């Protein structure tokens, strides 16, 4: 026998509420006010009962827009079951401690796998399928921006520039054909560095050429930058960082109030750095392989990295906040047989 369920009746026409009770009579739901007068009688199958969420009051909606609101969630569930209907599975899961724990473990595991394995794999596959020239326009505007903001025109003598370009071409003369172009700029505040743009432009700063004494070292740095181009790192970074930003928005976005909104960009920032370190490693691996194939010792990459590290007087920072892997690790890898 199902008890009377206490709650509030709402007409749907006015905002006043009537203390009343709900009761099942045969296949009909009957609502009576406190004096025992019947206010509503509807066949059970015609009402809509809101799904159970925590201890949120339940709503029973009648076809004439009137409704009944009650805090007696358990009694409503009993009533639903007594009519042979099943109650919400999701609510039962949400309340079970061991399921919550399981959900937590699975969520953390899936998130980890998606961020570190799934997403990079998808981005790599997509990047290989997308047209080659996709980022050419962006490369040009990046170069323009760098020229405007940071670089000065190169002051290297023209013969020196030609010498380096022919050295690189000569080294590559027996390997497959690559599409790239070498550019020289004065680095100014950036100092000794090299950059690769997705369209195959590889930029050396004058300071880098002055810093690296051996041709093999310059070629090793070139090989590393070529790795970024060949492995399409710009496009993959773009795909990955966009996805992370969107995912973290949808999952964490609800928690933001006022200033905490800035926190939404934190996971994207940390993940982007992690992806960037991964790409640096991949470019190093690519360079080491290329150097080996051409009969040049990969240790030249190591010594170039060491000179650069010394030049920039690097301090060891917190790994997770860096875009590049620790130089020591990178140099060690060039010494592996």
């Amino acid at each position: 026998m199902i008890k009377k369920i206490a709650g509030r009746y709402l007409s749907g026409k006015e905002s006043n509420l009537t203390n009343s009770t709900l009761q099942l009579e045969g296949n009909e739901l009957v609502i009576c006010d406190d004096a025992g007068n019947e206010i509503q009688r509807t066949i059970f199958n015609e009402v809509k009962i809101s799904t159970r969420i925590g201890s949120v009051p339940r709503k029973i909606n009648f076809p004439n827009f009137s409704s009944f609101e009650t805090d007696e969630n358990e009694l409503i569930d009993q009533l639903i079951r007594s009519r042979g209907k099943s109650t919400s599975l999701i609510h039962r899961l949400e309340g079970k401690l061991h399921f919550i724990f399981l959900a937590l473990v699975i969520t953390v595991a899936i998130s980890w796998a998606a961020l570190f394995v799934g997403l990079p794999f998808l981005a790599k596959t997509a990047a290989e399928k997308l047209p080659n020239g996709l980022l050419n326009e962006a490369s040009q505007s990046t170069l323009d921006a760098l020229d405007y903001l940071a670089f000065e025109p190169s002051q290297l003598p023209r013969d020196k520039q030609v010498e380096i370009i022919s050295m690189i071409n000569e080294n590559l003369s027996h390997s497959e054909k690559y599409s790239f172009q070498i550019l020289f700029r004065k680095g100014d505040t950036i100092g000794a560095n090299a950059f690769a743009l997705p369209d195959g432009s590889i930029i050396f700063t004058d300071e880098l050429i002055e810093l690296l004494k051996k041709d093999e070292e310059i070629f090793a740095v070139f090989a590393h930058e070529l790795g970024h181009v060949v492995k399409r790192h710009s496009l993959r970074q773009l795909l990955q960082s966009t996805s992370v930003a969107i995912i973290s928005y949808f999952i964490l976005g609800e928690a933001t109030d006022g200033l905490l909104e800035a926190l939404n960009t934190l996971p994207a920032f940390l993940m982007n750095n992690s992806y960037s370190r991964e790409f640096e490693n991949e470019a190093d691996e690519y360079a080491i392989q290329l150097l080996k194939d051409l009969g040049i010792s990969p240790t030249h990459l190591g010594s170039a990295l060491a000179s650069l590290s010394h030049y920039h007087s690097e301090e060891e920072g917190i790994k997770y906040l860096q875009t590049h892997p620790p130089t020591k690790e990178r140099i060690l890898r060039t010494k592996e047989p």
Partner: protein
Amino acid sequence: MENSENTNPTSNNNELSFSGSGREFFGIWIVNVLLTICTLGIYSAWAKVRTVNYFYGNTKLGNSSFSYTANPVSILKGRIIAFVVLMAYTFMSESSPLLGSLIFILVALLVPFVIVSSMKFKMYNTEYRGLRFGFVGTVGEAYKIFLGAYLLVAISLGILFPWWEKKRKEFLVGNIRFGTSQFNCRLEYGIFYQVAGVVLFSVILFFILFSFLSPSPSGSGVVAILFFIAIFVLSAFWYSTTTNHVISRSTLDNIGFRSEMNTGELIALWLVNLIIMVFSLGLATPWVMVRNARYRISKTSVIGGDLNTFLAKNENKTSSVGDEIGEALDIDVAI
């Protein structure tokens, strides 16, 4: 806390309270996240309805609670559109800056429309005591404020920003209706100019102080942290003062509202939120959400008037596209 024994729901009991708990909501949240991941985001629409309902349902006023009646399928449609627009924009702006800025302008032109339709969707789907809320702001009016007046703010180099802020809040709150009654929101320019003045003055003072103090590079880290703290404190000041003003100056027929948030309390709330979020790698999200809601509601009260005399209004459904684009592009339509 429970006093249902001795209160009569038909009397003028206007007590506002929030009864959600972080522990209970964690279960709901983690299941939402898990199912969202397993369905590649599709469940997020259902998750949203459950989440909003959890907060609405635990917000009790005059012996009844709020409920959210949105159809998850319309939210899903909106989310898909928002996702495509966002993807297209980020991608285009990288591959072709010209096309990217074209999309940006196009989206910017749509913002007023999106704000109005998302407010309509949100309000239409908010129900209290069997009556729906609604939003009666027009798209034309929205274009005047979010495009016309906004351009004036830019031209005035921000001098008109407090004026715009007042206009914006009046538009968003003053056009809400409950049943057949409409909210009234009359704000003062003075408050917005005072608050903006304090924020601007503090920032200038900060820069003057520290431009003399630390030219060394190791000191710049300390200055950055101090600047972050200053921004934190000023945001809390801005948020509490303006929110208090907007709520306290709003009325609905003969009902008044009062908000008494306090900058110090808000700083403490946000600081704890920040710490537990960082150290839990985001898993404290449900607690943070509950803490925010509990604080806001504990500081808001409904004064006088009679909650029993509102009447229902008949109306059409609104699409969810506006609502979801509004969310994904992070346009602040909150009051």
